[in-house]
Every structure is written in structure tokens, then in C-alpha cells.
């Protein structure tokens, strides 16, 4: 790993670490109540939810630890989660990490897909997007952006398009927890929410000098 990436990762981890984990540990509910709460939670879903929907309530190791420590695990666990998550990252077969920024622009704006249930499920074939604007500023012309994540306006303009930056960007979208355990950002690649190819399009939207993210 190059120095740039290491620095980025360190900065991200450092920011998340600041509040300290003493607070998190104090807040971690005792196991007895957690077991009761799990039981109440699991039994609160409609009996006619298909089994494969119900698997969405299952937690992998990272989810379980992040929940237990309220997204603020102690340093040792944090490192353990990040290492395990980094190992999940897969790349497109042809190896090219920059796709088409125009496709990426579309994916960044789409917030639909993956909704289940009986009231307002997504219709079959509904496009699944990255919903990037929900949390990030990107192209300047889109005023309706969220602030849960940092502004990514001029992402490529500020960082360039070196192989390291491109790989970092791809990896971060594929599995955000490889860099910051328990971050708010979904693990888009791990869950196959986005395909590796779709992720390369979003990478292009972020780093391509022609992308509206890097204009204006």
C-alpha cells in the first residue's frame, strides 16, 4: 500500500476514533437484555415475509460487532474488522477500475432498488442505484445533496487519477469497512448491491476530469 492510501486510511480511522471507546463500552447493553431484544425484534416481522427476505435480518461478524459497540469498537476489534473486510474485495475480470462517468452519474442519483415488504416494494426490475447524493455532495449542479458523508465535489481534481487513488476509490465503494470499521457507508460490493462494473462507473464519475464532479 502506498503512503497516500495509508494516510487516507489513517485520517479516516483517526477521525472515527476520537470520541473514544470507553463511552461505547459503557453503553453496550448487557448480553441478557441483548438476547431478549433480539428475540423481540425477530418476532416482530409479519409471518408471511418469505424466508429469503428474513435473511436480511441476519448479521455478519462486522454488523454484529458494530451494533454491539454502537459503531465505535475498541481499536483491536476495529483493526480486526478492517482486515477481514479488506480481504473481501473483488475486482472486475478485465481489471479496469475506471468505467464510464456518465453511467456513474446515473447510478449516483438513483436511490431506489432493494425495497421489499408488502406496502411499497420496488416493482420488479427497478434499477438499483448507489444513492450517493443522499449523503455526499458531488456535481455542483445537483443542489439536493446530503451531508452524512464528506463532500466529494472536485474529488478527482483534488486527488488526481493515480493508480493508488483509483484503487482506493474502488475499494472504498466496494467495502467501506476495509478503511473505517462501522462507518455509515454501505458495503456496496460485498452485498452485491452494485456490480464491480457499476463500481468502476462510479469511480469514473469521481475521478474522470471530464466528469461534472470535477468541473465547475
Amino acid at each position, binding site marked *: 500500500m502506498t503512503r497516500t492510501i495509508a494516510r487516507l486510511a489513517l485520517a479516516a480511522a483517526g477521525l472515527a476514533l476520537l470520541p473514544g471507546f470507553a463511552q461505547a463500552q459503557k453503553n453496550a*447493553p448487557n448480553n441478557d*437484555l*441483548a438476547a*431478549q*431484544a*433480539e428475540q*423481540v*425484534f425477530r*418476532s*416482530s*416481522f*409479519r*409471518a408471511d*415475509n418469505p424466508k429469503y*427476505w*428474513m435473511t*436480511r*435480518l*441476519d*448479521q455478519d461478524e462486522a*454488523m454484529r460487532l*458494530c*451494533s454491539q459497540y*454502537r*459503531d465505535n469498537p475498541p481499536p483491536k476489534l476495529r483493526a480486526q474488522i478492517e482486515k477481514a473486510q479488506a480481504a473481501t474485495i473483488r475486482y472486475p475480470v478485465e481489471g479496469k477500475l475506471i468505467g464510464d462517468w456518465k453511467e456513474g452519474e446515473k447510478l449516483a442519483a438513483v436511490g431506489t432498488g*432493494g*425495497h*421489499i*415488504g*408488502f*406496502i*411499497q416494494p420496488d416493482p420488479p426490475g427497478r434499477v438499483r442505484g448507489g444513492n450517493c*447524493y*443522499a*449523503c455526499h455532495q458531488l456535481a*455542483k449542479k445537483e*443542489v*439536493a*445533496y*446530503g*451531508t*452524512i458523508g464528506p463532500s466529494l465535489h472536485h474529488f478527482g481534481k483534488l486527488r488526481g487519477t493515480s493508480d493508488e487513488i483509483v484503487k482506493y476509490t474502488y475499494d472504498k465503494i466496494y467495502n467501506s469497512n476495509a478503511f473505517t470499521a462501522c462507518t*455509515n*457507508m*454501505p*458495503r456496496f460490493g460485498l*452485498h*452485491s*448491491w452494485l456490480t464491480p462494473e457499476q463500481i468502476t462507473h462510479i469511480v469514473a464519475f469521481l475521478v474522470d476530469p471530464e466528469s461534472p464532479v470535477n468541473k465547475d
Partner: protein
Amino acid sequence: MHSIVQAALAAATLGLAGAALAQGSTMDEIAKYREMLADGNPAELLEAKGEDLWKKPRGPKNASLEQCDMGLGPGKLEGAYAQLPRYFADTKKVMDAESRVVHCMVSLQGFTQEEATRNWYSRPGRESDIEALVTYIGAKSNGEKINVPARHPEEARMAKIGEHIFYRRSGPQDFSCAICHGQEGKRIRLQELGNLTTQAGAGTAMGNWPSYRVSQGAVWTMQRRLIDCMRQARWPEPTYLSDSIIALEVFLQKTASGTVMQTPGIKR
């Protein structure tokens, strides 16, 4: 208008960056949008209908709901919503406004549980009595302080369970309630996200419901609101009136206690 002028003046004086100014005016215009909608909330139409439904004899027992005990004694509605959910000795359960109304429709009016809850939310061409009733009952707590101390052991247990669910991550987007509602001063798109772990944040979130949602063209109750949060988390669908939803309500109302209700609200 005043605030826009002020913002412009401040920007000119301080020589703020163009981007900051543009974003400031975006939020000013959103504020103007909300202000224009606040006067004339369609939820008031439903509130009137709810009052009618409360007072009219209905159901197999041809009884009104006027003797329904929402927690402060039979028929006492003023301030009742602001003190829910609470433990009810007659059912030995912690109940929220909606589960209690349904309980009264069953016990006083003779409806079956299925009949009472069949249309728990409205959709085009199908109205919901529960939505109307809860809008009416909620409005009877307008201006009242939320007060859910959760001192009864069952209430305290439910608050803890709600807290557990609030931080619980799962699903194909790794969501929990906390990832959007656990920090200060964040937005999703242009909508401010309350930090529901603080009194002020939870107060802003809880005190405006039931609320008319302009994007849905309908009033949403708190059950509808929370069940939809789980839909947005891409989880399966919770059961209406289930303990998870009530537990989250206890947790949030407890956190919000002391803040003043302004309901019915109007939101995007």
C-alpha cells in the same frame, strides 16, 4: 424574506465563498417552501374526520370511542398522546396510541382485531379510520410536553429493547436507525436529520407526528413512519403494532420527554 436578506448581507460583509452562499440560499428557499405549506395543512381535514369517528356510535356494539382510556382515564384525550406509549394494567402491555385505539375499537365497539386494523394506513381510494383517529388524538396533545419517563419496569424494558434495535445493523445496505439519526447537523439530500439520541433531536422528530407527508399525499402515523424506516433499511416488513415498533417509540419518546408537541405536522 427577512432571513434571505440577512444571509445576503452577512455574506457580503464577511466575503463568504460563493458555494457557501449558494447552499445557504438553497436552505432558505426550502424554509420558504415549508413556511408556505404550514398554513393550510391537509391533516386538518383528517383531524375533523377523526373527531367524528371518535364520537359516532359504530361497530357491532354501536358504541362510540368516548369512553376509551388512552392512559389518562376514560375519554380524557387532552395530553394523552404526549404520554404514550405507557403500560396499561388492563392488557398488561406497553401500548402506543395506535395499539390503544385498536384495543378500544375491539373492546368498546366490538370490531375484531382484523377489522380494526385492516386499513391501518390509507392508499388512494381507500381511507383509513385509524389515521383519522390518531390525527385527532395527536392534535389533542398539541402544545403539550412529551412525557414518557418509562419508570414502570415493563416500560423501562421496552425502552432498552428500543435502544438495542436503534443501533442494530443489518440488511444489504448495512443500515441501522443510528447511521442516519445518531449525529448532529446532518442532512439526507436536503432534509435535516434529527439526532434522535438527544432530547432536542428526538423532540423535533417525535413532536410533529402524526404528520401530513406531501410526497405521499397522506397523513402518516408513528407506526407508519417507523415501519417505513425499516422498508428504507431494505428489511422485511414488520407487523403493525408489533413490539419492536412500540419499543422504538418508548425509547424515542423517553429521549424526547420535555419537548413540546406541534401536531399535526406537515413534511416532505
